[in-house]
């Protein structure tokens, strides 16, 4: 069958999709977006977390056909200049970026706040759980009307397993990102209120 799906803002088409294929497989193997990871195939680990119509799902548990006509956002879609990079990932042996304070790869200022905070807080180790965690944390922060409490963060991320970090630095990263995002939102609200910018 043919599956039409918007991924990271672009219309995409996958042909000859077998009815039993997962959305994860289509993203990774057919659409050249290997950011979401395959680590358990049963929705236990969260490594394949993506947005489906704005709700986070384990892409391994979604049949590709269920995504027909819907919007998917993957970890690749959270940062600038991402979606056109097709055909898999090629970053090997990164050099610290001279413009990015010793950090390699894409410049920090081109990353989403959650991604940036994961790097800054040291929340990344082997990195295999990271794409799923970044999407799940992004969703938590975007949907909360305030900076979430620690217990809320832990509960929201309890479906994303990590074997390396011990979770502490992930919590730090999410706290940091939430604080920044909400501070920015508050500042923008203040600007849109007449006279508010002077307060």
């Amino acid at each position, binding site marked *: 069958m043919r599956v039409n799906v918007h991924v990271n803002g672009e219309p995409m088409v996958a042909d000859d999709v077998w009815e*039993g294929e997962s959305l994860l497989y289509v993203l990774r193997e057919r659409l050249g977006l*290997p950011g979401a990871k395959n*680590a358990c195939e049963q929705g236990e680990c969260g490594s394949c977390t993506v947005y489906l119509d704005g709700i986070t799902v384990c892409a391994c548990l979604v049949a590709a056909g269920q995504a027909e006509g819907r919007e998917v956002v993957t970890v690749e879609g959270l940062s600038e200049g991402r979606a056109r990079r097709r055909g898999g990932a090629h*970053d090997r042996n990164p050099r610290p970026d001279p413009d990015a304070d010793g950090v390699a*790869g894409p410049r920090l200022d081109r990353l989403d706040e959650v991604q940036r905070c994961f790097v800054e807080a040291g929340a990344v*180790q082997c990195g295999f759980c990271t794409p799923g965690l970044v999407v799940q944390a992004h969703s938590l922060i975007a949907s909360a009307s305030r900076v979430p409490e620690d217990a809320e*963060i832990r509960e929201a991320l309890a479906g994303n*397993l990590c074997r390396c970090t011990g979770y502490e630095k992930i919590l730090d990263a999410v706290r940091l990102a939430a604080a920044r995002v909400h501070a920015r939102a508050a500042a923008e609200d203040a600007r849109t209120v007449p006279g508010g910018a002077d307060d």
Partner: protein
Amino acid sequence: MTVWREAVGTPAARVEGPAKVTGRAGYTYDRPVTDPAYAFPVQATIARGRVASIDSAAAAGVEGVLAVVTHRDAARLADTGDAELAVLQSDEVGFRGQFVGVVVAETPQAARYAAGLVRVEYEQRPHDTELRADRPGLYAPEQVNGGFVSDTDEGDVDAAMEAAAVTVDRAYTTPMEFNSPMEPHVSVAVWDPGERAPGGGFAEGARLTLFDSTQGPHVVRSTLAQVFGLPPERVRVISPYVGGGFGSKGMPHAHNVLAALAAWAVPGRPVKLALTRQQMFALAGHRTPTIQRVRLGAGADGRLTAVAHEVVEHTSAIKEFAEQTAVGARMMYAAPNRRTSHRLAALDVPVPSWMRAPGEAPGFFALEVAMDELAQACGLDPIELRARNDPEVDPESGRPWSGRHLVRCLREGAARFGWAERTAPGTRLVGRELVGLGVAASTYPYYRLPGSRAVVEYEGGGRYTVRIGAADIGTGAWTALTQIAADALGCRLRAVRVEIGDSDLPAATVAGGSSGTTSWGSAVVAACRAFRHVYGEQPPAGAEAGADMPDDPDAERFAMHSFGAQFAEVRVDADTGEVRVPRMLGVFSVGRVVNPRTARSQFIGGMTMGLSMALHERGVLDHRTGHVINHDLAEYHIATHADVVDVDAVWLDEEDVHAGPLGARGIGEIGIVGAAAAIANAVHNATGVRVRDLPITPDVLLR
């Protein structure tokens, strides 16, 4: 002399961090290969016997199937001495889950479906998978992992126990545990066949490229070269990004060979093989279950007169792996009479292997709970007991310590953790929760493995490339090596790019034994110094120099170990027996810390794995079938975000002047050592119930 100031010791952000958070880091399965085919294994459904017949006709008829390979038609390997790696070479079955075939197809779905259609009939033989301390046939291995002798015996333990004022004599058990890195084991095999040898064997001209998720590209290369009978230069192993390993990717396993055999069967096609999470439980190594008897004899003042640590554990009948569970007890405490031993049961089980801190992780659960029991029996504070038994020199070798600061770690931790608030066992009830504090000591040896080489090249424009075929499995080694090279060259961090993860790069030892940063780092320092020696500060573009890791004479003269103190607070629900761990603190002495940010993650990650070991992890082997029945993340539980509240790690500000040019000892494994004991001791303090068998589940506390 190199000055460690600009980069080493600073919390540099992970060099590959942005690649990982954006999904751009290319792990093994992510890397594009042209026109791939996909493999799915067929696994034995008996624990012991032989394959009587295989009917693969239905599988071969599935649309898209390219080949079904079994022992009848798999290419012959040159070296079948390692039974784990002698894949599809005979009809013998040594454990349930062993490979008996593989299907290669145009899609992974077709391969998987067809694999389920392969009909295998077996001639089953009686199997035995149950570890018991009283079983017949236990034997002493010639040596245990790490090259240590199996048994030691000094003085007269029995007489000392007889004469001791206070004794502890208890049995402790730990279950089968599984490394469970988040990235499953993946191999992508690409053959350049050359001329095929007569009979379909591997021709001398053949070349194998393996994209592999491994802790050591060079060891995979050398091992597979031998297995396939190829010169090492005709095998290349590439693995820049590795999604965790914890020892399970430290040596090649059967899937590496299976991927290459599968690719050999479909000429011209790269073959991708990813173990499923379930398959990993039979095929990617595990930690043996252990039955440990610990005997401690002491005077009324708590000074030890006898330490005995005797271990029974399993290995696979087809390949020996002897976990060095009792080795830590040889050096940990001063006692004139000491005995350690390891006895193995060779069972029809999957092949055990390295799992984070093999030996120390299970061994220090037993030893450190026993020490807590001794403290209780003597009426001493557990920290004071350990201080009284802190040896001035290594009890086993008689060598001086390069730096043993265990007591400092314990006292520092006690002050930070609020140890003075600890009350008598079972006396602190807050609401409906029993609260307790526990402590345990920790140690891990300093290993600096020989065999690494680094090369430095000046690219011009102020930029240097350092090459070494090392692996960063999430440890932070990539970043640490970049920092080390920057300081050793005397340039800015951003001027250095380090290339790792490819056997075409200079040789490097495995990322194991917490040895990576010290071993590879020493080679990088030597190469940078050699470079400056030849080219000075104004090198021409293209200038290149390399060096091998220098010898380490101090390693022969000193007893070199990292040490640590583990603290835990537990809250036990008085009604349900549920154990929560609101706080853990580790205080470590590890020599110089190259990168505080990545080091802290290593410590905390290890401690959390220890929490997971204490409360969650248990592989359940069904002895009727030899099957690990809880073989997935739904039923083999590892700690989640919601299990962790406040885990912190600190370390002494020090360098170990005997530990190579960096003054750093390893840090990757010590975090797990003693963590489970600290929690078990805290559970005792909370409830008065002494738990000697892991994991600590609510039912144990409700009995």
